[in-house]
């Protein structure tokens, strides 16, 4: 392509960071020094452009090393990959974690989403604002703008997936290696520590912090930013870790998540061995018979998705693991990836085997540095031992996994937006049909599965499909993870077989603290629905929730007690959808803005429910009916249920009653595995 570049040179550091991902340039045609031979023939072309999917990793490399993406750096990335600068800018500016203007190397992300707001993130926000000025501003008071290296900035963040330890804050610091620190639950001193200190003085190679063995190179250093408390072990998120009843969580807390030997000693890779024994058709049969449905929110039968993809004549087939867990209140996939990363690697290998894919992409959200480190370690060790790559376990199976890291965009968890993000395009959802099983990643047949869904495949193969199907209820089989947060005594990740009621779950978490009562429970996250405190008998099954006009979504159970400010929660939900809309279609792009404005008017008292509720309903209905993807289609769910179910704004009971019949369908589409699946089902 005949591209025009800005002719701004990258710094040596920026060039190194990009070359570390892309390899050194081959000629003047792809960003290297021009040689005599370059004048006689052209190189690159298609070969360079076919690496477009490395755009996002290359942008990450610069952002991780320098802290922001300069014009010179973007120009260099474009030359290396033959990407038009306007397109690369379009991609880079899509993501919240990338900066296109110079900023300090350390960025503190303070979660102000539902669970953290209920746990007091407001005070932390005020403290950060007092120390560093408004969000995005900033240099520390003691560190002037003349020394951006030593300074820090901050942003309010959507859910960081640390809800069991709310309120949470995450600091990321660019460098070689990049470093991070997590404070959760965060108190004022923790936030001070995240903003304090300079860049780490002891760089050391990444991933070498455990002292025993050098370990594979990982994106983030294993030691946290100096001056911060170490993060509690992954198992701390599971209050009843070690329970003999656990199936999905059985290794959490029992094995060293960095040790492949531990994993194998605890039953790891037995399922893959079984899969290789029974063959791809056998795996498909077991998964079909298990009744497993997607755990990302859409509840589409996994076996059907796999079988449909396996049958496609077009090749290659791809597997995508959707680990872009961003639904506010959801943290189950994080715990699985941090605490038992090899299980996901094994499950992806089995899925790839079953659907005939040689490459699997693991798309993990950018706000999960520890899960990323554990997975990078797991992949490296698995490759070393012949559990990934060619001839896995001495069989003829060839399969490998590439990690792709998101950069702060909830929409990329939508099952078609994730393709765009991986391909190096903007993370915009695509129109269905065609469905991913026909035309998915790179236009090829693709299976997209959520982390929890994939991990369920291990017990299915070990128990057999029919035995798995006998767990739970007839229509909701197997175990399920629930992310409990908010006003309960022991928030955390709980594993229960399908069939328990909401009350059972709240009681398992110790109930609400004395003197408190439950005002509302948000089921399914921001895209989900509120139920009342007197509706705890709702069975936590797909059919039970549906019958109650709610939905399980991704398994979020966020308890709001009588002290919670419901209207503030709704305003936060509305702000979330406005921030996370990709902007492609009008109903969502503008509708989410108008929804937030109406709620702000209601909060300030500038207008009355009589006036605003009809407007909210009309905007909400159009978003639900006419948006392209599940994000817009569910952006009004929580608000609607707060109005109709909780009676917020005390509308007369004669108002069009109850959540609409379509609530459960539409709601599910927001969550990762989404829309297509539901439509496919219909």
């Amino acid at each position, binding site marked *: 392509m005949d591209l*025009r570049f800005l002719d701004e040179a990258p710094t040596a550091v920026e060039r190194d960071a990009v070359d570390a991902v892309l390899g050194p340039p081959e000629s003047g045609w792809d960003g290297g020094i021009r040689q005599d031979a370059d004048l006689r023939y052209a190189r690159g072309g298609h070969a360079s452009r076919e690496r477009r999917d490395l755009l996002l990793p290359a942008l990450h490399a610069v952002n991780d090393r320098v802290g922001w993406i300069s014009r010179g750096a973007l120009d260099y990335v474009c030359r290396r990959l033959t990407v038009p600068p306007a*397109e690369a800018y379009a991609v880079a500016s899509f993501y919240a974690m990338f900066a296109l203007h110079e900023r300090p190397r350390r960025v503190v992300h303070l979660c102000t989403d539902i669970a953290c707001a209920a746990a007091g993130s407001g005070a932390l926000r005020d403290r950060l604002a007092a120390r560093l000025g408004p969000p995005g501003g900033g240099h520390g008071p003691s560190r002037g703008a003349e020394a951006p290296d030593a300074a820090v900035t901050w942003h309010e963040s959507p859910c960081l997936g640390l809800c069991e330890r709310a309120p949470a804050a995450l600091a990321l610091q660019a460098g070689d290696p990049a470093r991070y620190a997590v404070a959760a639950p965060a108190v004022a001193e923790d936030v001070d520590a995240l903003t304090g200190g300079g860049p780490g003085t002891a760089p050391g190679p990444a991933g070498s912090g455990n002292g025993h063995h050098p370990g594979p190179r990982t994106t983030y250093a294993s030691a946290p930013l100096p001056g911060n408390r170490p993060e509690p072990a992954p198992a701390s998120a599971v209050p009843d870790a070690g329970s003999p009843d656990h199936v999905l969580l059985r290794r959490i807390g029992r094995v060293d998540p960095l040790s492949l030997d531990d994993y194998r000693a605890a039953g790891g890779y037995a399922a893959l061995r079984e899969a290789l024994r029974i063959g791809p058709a056998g795996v498909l049969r077991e998964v079909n018979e298990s009744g497993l449905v997607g755990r990302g929110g859409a509840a589409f039968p996994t076996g059907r998705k796999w079988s449909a993809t396996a049958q496609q004549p077009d090749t290659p087939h791809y597997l995508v693991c959707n680990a872009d867990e961003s639904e506010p209140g959801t943290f189950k996939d994080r715990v699985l990836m941090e605490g038992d990363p090899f299980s996901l690697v094994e499950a992806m290998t089995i899925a790839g085997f079953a659907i005939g894919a040689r490459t699997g992409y693991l798309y993990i959200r950018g706000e999960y540095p520890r899960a990323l480190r554990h997975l990078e370690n797991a992949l490296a060790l698995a490759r070393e031992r012949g559990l990934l790559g060619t001839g896995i376990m001495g069989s003829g199976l060839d399969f490998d996994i590439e990690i792709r890291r998101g950069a702060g965009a909830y929409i990329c968890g939508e099952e078609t937006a994730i393709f765009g993000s991986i391909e190096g395009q903007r993370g915009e959802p695509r129109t269905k049909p065609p469905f991913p099983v026909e035309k998915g990643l790179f236009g090829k047949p693709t299976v997209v599965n959520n982390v929890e869904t994939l991990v369920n495949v291990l017990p299915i193969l070990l128990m057999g499909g029919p035995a798995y199907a006998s767990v739970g209820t007839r229509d909701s089989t197997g175990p399920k993870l629930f992310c409990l947060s908010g006003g309960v005594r022991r928030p955390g990740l709980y594993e229960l077989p399908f069939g328990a009621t909401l009350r059972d779950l709240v009681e398992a978490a110790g109930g609400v603290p004395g003197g408190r009562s439950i005002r509302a429970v948000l089921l399914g996250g921001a895209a989900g629905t509120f139920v009342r405190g007197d509706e705890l008998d709702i069975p936590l099954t797909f059919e039970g929730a549906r019958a109650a006009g709610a939905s399980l979504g991704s398994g979020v159970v966020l308890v709001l007690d009588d002290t919670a400010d419901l209207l503030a929660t709704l305003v936060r939900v509305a702000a979330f959808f406005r921030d*996370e809309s990709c902007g*492609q279609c009008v109903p969502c792009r503008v509708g989410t803005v108008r929804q937030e404005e109406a709620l*702000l008017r209601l909060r300030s008292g500038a207008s009355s429910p009589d006036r605003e509720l009809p407007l909210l309903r009309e905007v909400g209905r159009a978003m639900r009916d006419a948006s392209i993807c599940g994000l817009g289609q569910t952006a009004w769910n929580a608000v609607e249920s707060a109005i109709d179910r909780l009676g917020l704004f005390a509308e007369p009971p004669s108002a069009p009653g109850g959540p609409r019949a379509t609530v459960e369908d539409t709601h599910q589409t927001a969550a990762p595995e989404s829309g297509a699946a539901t439509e496919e089902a219909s």
Partner: protein
Amino acid sequence: MTEPVLLAPPRRLIDATIDGEPVRVPEGTTVLEACAGAGTEIPTLCYGDTLTPRNACRVCVVEVEGARTLAPACSRKLEPGMSVATDSERVRHSRRMVLELLGSSVDLSTTPGVAEWNERYGADPDRFGPRAEPAALGVRDARRAGEHEPGDGTEAETVEQPAKVDNDLYVRDYSKCIMCYKCVDACGDQWQNTFAIGVAGRGFDARISTEHDVSLPDSACVYCGNCVEVCPTGALSFATEFEMRREGTWDEGRQTETTTVCTYCGVGCNLTLHVQDNRIVKVTSPHDNPVTHGNLCIKGRFGFQHVQRRGEGERR
């Protein structure tokens, strides 16, 4: 003139129903095409007759029986037995809301058809409150994805900002931009392959932008004007049109359109010269012209000044 005969494989005919009337169309026909054939008018904004449908604006949504959500007529293909309603209550509601949401956030004053559609669907774009003040130039371009300043809700946020005038040939007035993606597609791999612009940012702050919002002369733009050709709202316009509109002298009723052949090279592009008061004020190309499909280069599109240079005595 003889037309080339395209020997595409024969397409199976399928039967479907639109608004209760049976239709028989070749497989692969979109709802919009079938409706056009049946004489049913469906409003469109982001649809372009020379471009792949983006189905972004959602003003063309129709109700497909049995589907959970509405479907964009521009891209949804008819399937055997499909029953489509193009004017149901659900359809009318979503169309009205799309018109209201767009009308409240974008300047649609030069978008053909909108006034009539507002009337037809009963849309009232002013219902969301007074419009917020336009942003200063550059403010929207500097916004970070995933962040916004929540106001108090008393003003309806808009995309309005001053027009970008950075070259002599055409003007980008993004107050009028509905984000239809057509300019990006025309500039990119669907026609021009110049890739000077993309959609930057996210959500309500998404905008059409060059890299780092550099001015057009610093960008890859080659001034073919093919983006202007496809812009449905007048956000992109000839500098002549922009100036005349500002002066209040733009009057399409007084304009004539003459289609001729470009004299610059031997390709033979059709030009349609829009002439007002004996001056060429705009150049387009017929979208059904097999040479251009509506596309031109800088010479055909903007190189007309010499024709009307008639010596000092005759200049105004």
